[in-house]
């Protein structure tokens, strides 16, 4: 049990500190860093899905006016480490996926760089590629572990026996699509080596973690970390795709080393992002449920098949939420991967939980229908007393309260059992649960200094729209016992103390804990009357870490769907969520996090789908005109509420993470609402009118 910090600044609905710069457009993103006489880089990409580069004719590019540098796998410098295939840029003639980087042109202007890159002629020894994900493949394999260090498979009891003897059983296969993060700011960097090209490197990079990015680049280029500075005060969205660096960062660093002393800028085009900046693997989820007539689960199991690239493994932890959401004596989860000639999958908002809360949450709705039971009630009767996975008690779990309050706020009781029609529209309600683990990273350090009569906290944290610029001062103010107006925070630069990645909804938990430690060290050393320049440091590893409880945030989402009786058009006029996510430090920014996640979940349900062309080995709809994300007119009334929960075990703020939970469960709630409206059960995302239309009465 932790002594919770007295909330004074925490809980205030403050306007973002970076707000004025953002509404004026003067907040400086990576590519925009003002530097004298920058040069511009444009990549050359492979146009085959598998093979070897046999030659590159760069003559036209090299003789073009304004071209400064052309690099190919045959001319680029050898990197110190090529252990990570993704970062071994221009180090091999092997092509592992279409769109892979095979060259770069640097020129005086972006127009010339692009034109010159287009003139580079690449010849290949093309090999046949294999890029079809299927659960029937005979080469599926079990990875050693899945993401976040989770075991690949888990089993308890005997699922098969429970299924065979169950009063009610359900076995269905569900599919989520391939998704691309598509932050509005592309992956972009301004890179500058010192004049000698070997002493010091500065990267203004769009990243969710300046220190993790520095560590990766230092290793690849064989530099001491002190030789590299990474700066990123603002991130134009990331959603995981900027959580670890991608090949573009290595490419621009190589390009800039060829022009020492001159800054080189590289922003991926939107089209290039579809093969170079990561994506969420499509998943195939076979879900098994066995229950008695009262709805109590006797067995719950999920067998997941998904893809990774042949050259770098990424194992989405899709089965993980099934391990802990509901009680059942017999349980099983498995993950199998197909290693394909495809771009490298990576992190996307709520990896694991986002796809993994689709299949099971739709399956529960199907089970409720079979039982003739309210789907809210079905979830309530399967509430586990302790974490079924670890056996530990919950640090706090208020899923039932979220379901009950959510149902009341939404008007769930007005939901009849059957189809309802209003004019040309069928109307239905759906529900699903949400969950996200509460994570704290192992390393993060903060300093607190007294400077010109103000308190300054420094930590290399990132704000990708999450609110760190605003929330960290609130935490620091309460830890120091001063007004939030007397606190400045500096983030987004490796010159500040080491911070962990903004990922896993762990930022505020981790960095906030370090800031509180620093503040307490500061007060312990200097009391309440410090002198100018007094400074203290705190580490997250000094903060109490509870190992005895299972810590998760929970939620419930309710959806009203309307399906047009003639066209099958699907609209979602209402989306309402109630969350139990610990203390909310800034209600204004927190609400945006919740509704943003929920709306991205709505987008996943209805629109998003990277249409894979297996013959070409590429995404066919690789731009924002054809990869549809929810636009303003697709979004109706979106409400996020939260319970007054202060978790006493997770940290001194009493807070959990809120950046990702909003996207979990949403797509299932939409599918369930569409089924309630129409009687059509869609088990493969996205829910589009062509899937609904044949089943309409």
């Amino acid at each position, binding site marked *: 049990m932790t002594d919770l910090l007295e909330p004074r600044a925490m809980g205030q609905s403050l306007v973002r500190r970076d*707000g004025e710069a953002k509404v004026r*457009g003067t907040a400086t993103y990576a590519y925009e860093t003002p530097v004298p006489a920058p040069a511009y880089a444009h990549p050359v990409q492979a146009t085959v899905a598998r093979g070897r580069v046999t030659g590159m004719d760069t003559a036209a590019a090299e003789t073009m006016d304004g071209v400064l540098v052309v690099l190919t796998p045959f001319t680029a410098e050898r990197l110190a480490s090529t252990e990570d295939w993704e970062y071994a840029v221009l180090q091999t003639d092997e092509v592992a996926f279409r769109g892979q980087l095979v060259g770069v042109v640097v020129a005086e202007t972006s127009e010339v760089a692009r034109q010159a890159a287009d003139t580079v002629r690449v010849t290949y020894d093309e090999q046949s590629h294999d890029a079809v994900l299927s659960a029937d493949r005979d080469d599926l394999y079990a990875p050693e572990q899945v993401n976040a260090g989770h075991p690949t498979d888990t089993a308890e009891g005997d699922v098969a026996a429970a299924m065979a003897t169950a009063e009610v059983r359900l076995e269905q296969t569900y599919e989520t699509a391939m998704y691309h993060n598509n932050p*509005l700011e592309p992956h972009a960097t301004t890179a500058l080596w010192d004049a000698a090209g070997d002493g010091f490197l500065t990267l203004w990079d769009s990243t969710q973690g300046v220190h993790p990015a520095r560590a990766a680049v230092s290793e690849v280029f064989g530099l001491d970390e002190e030789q590299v500075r990474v700066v990123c005060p603002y991130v134009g969205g990331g959603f995981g795709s900027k959580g670890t660096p991608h090949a573009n960062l290595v490419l621009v660093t190589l390009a800039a080393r060829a022009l020492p002393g001159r800054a080189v800028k590289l922003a991926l085009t*939107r089209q290039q992002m579809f093969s170079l900046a990561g994506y969420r693997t499509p998943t195939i989820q076979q879900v098994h449920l066995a229950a008695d007539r009262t709805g109590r689960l006797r067995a719950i199991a999920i067998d997941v098949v998904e893809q990774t690239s042949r050259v770098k493994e990424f194992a989405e932890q899709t089965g993980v939420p099934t391990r802990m959401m509901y009680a059942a004596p017999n349980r099983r989860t498995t993950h199998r991967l197909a290693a394909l000639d495809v771009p490298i999958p990576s992190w996307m908002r709520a990896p694991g939980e986002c796809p993994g809360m689709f299949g099971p949450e739709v399956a529960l709705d199907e089970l409720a229908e079979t039982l003739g039971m309210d789907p809210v009630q079905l979830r309530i009767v399967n509430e586990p007393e302790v974490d079924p996975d670890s056996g530990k008690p919950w640090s706090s779990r208020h899923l039932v309260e979220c379901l009950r309050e959510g149902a009341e706020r939404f008007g769930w009781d007005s939901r009849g059992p059957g189809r309802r029609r209003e004019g040309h529209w069928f109307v239905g309600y759906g529900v699903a649960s949400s969950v996200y683990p509460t994570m704290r990273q192992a390393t993060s350090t903060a300093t607190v200094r007294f400077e010109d009569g103000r308190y300054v906290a420094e930590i290399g944290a990132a704000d990708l729209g999450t609110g760190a610029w605003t929330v960290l001062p609130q935490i620091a103010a309460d830890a120091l016992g001063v007004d939030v107006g007397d606190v400045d925070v500096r983030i987004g630069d490796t010159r500040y103390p080491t911070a962990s990645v903004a990922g896993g909804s762990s930022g505020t938990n981790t960095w906030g804990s370090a800031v509180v430690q620093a503040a307490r060290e500061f007060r312990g050393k200097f009391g309440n009357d410090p002198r100018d320049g007094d400074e203290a440091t705190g580490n997250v590893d000094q903060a109490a870490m509870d190992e005895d409880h299972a810590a998760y945030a929970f939620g419930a989402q309710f959806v009203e769907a309307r399906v047009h009786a003639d066209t099958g058009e699907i609209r979602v006029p209402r989306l309402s969520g109630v969350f139990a996510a610990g203390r909310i430090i800034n209600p204004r920014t927190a609400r945006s996090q919740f*509704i*943003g996640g929920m*709306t991205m979940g709505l987008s996943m349900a209805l629109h998003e789908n990277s249409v894979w062309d297996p013959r070409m080995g590429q995404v066919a709809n690789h731009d924002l005109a054809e990869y549809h994300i929810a636009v*303003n007119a697709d979004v109706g009334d979106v409400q996020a509420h939260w319970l007054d929960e202060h978790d006493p075990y997770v940290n001194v703020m009493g807070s959990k993470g809120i950046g990702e939970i909003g996207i979990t469960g949403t797509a299932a709630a939409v599918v369930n609402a569409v089924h309630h409206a129409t009687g059509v059960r869609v088990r493969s995302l996205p829910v589009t009118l062509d899937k609904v239309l044949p089943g309409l009465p």
Partner: protein
Amino acid sequence: MDAEISLTVDGARHRLTVDTRTTVLDTLRERLGNTSPKKGCDHGQCGACTVLLDGERTLACLALAVAHDGAELITADGLAAEGELHPVQQAFLEQDAYQCGYCTPGQICSAVGMLQEIDRGWPSHVTEDLTAEPELSHDEVAERMSGNLCRCAAYANIVPAVQQAGGRRS
């Protein structure tokens, strides 16, 4: 091929030589150092580059600079030229109608242009009566702001922000 043009940007006049392939967006960002308008797609698909060009909301990435010799451009930064935020900008702060901030200058220029269009009585796809004065309803604002993508999905805050600013503007 290069061409000499003049542009007025946020009240300041510039004479400059541009590659005839250069867009208004790249002219602003890479030649004049005005990075208020953002590049999200370079294909007119996301709206992040929206500026006011001769008073109308325009996608700067789809306009070639050489075709707009003499034009007057206002970016989101220019809307607050006197140091005081435009009512649309103030409403965005109060409604938290943004997160990462990358689409925000485009959203704001688009909202300013859109409110003028409503003032002129221009109907939209969702306007029931094409001859009536359009209202600043949720559906009208959402429809008219749908050319501006927000991946953080602040839409549910953008609509009330535009309504708030629209209500105050006269």
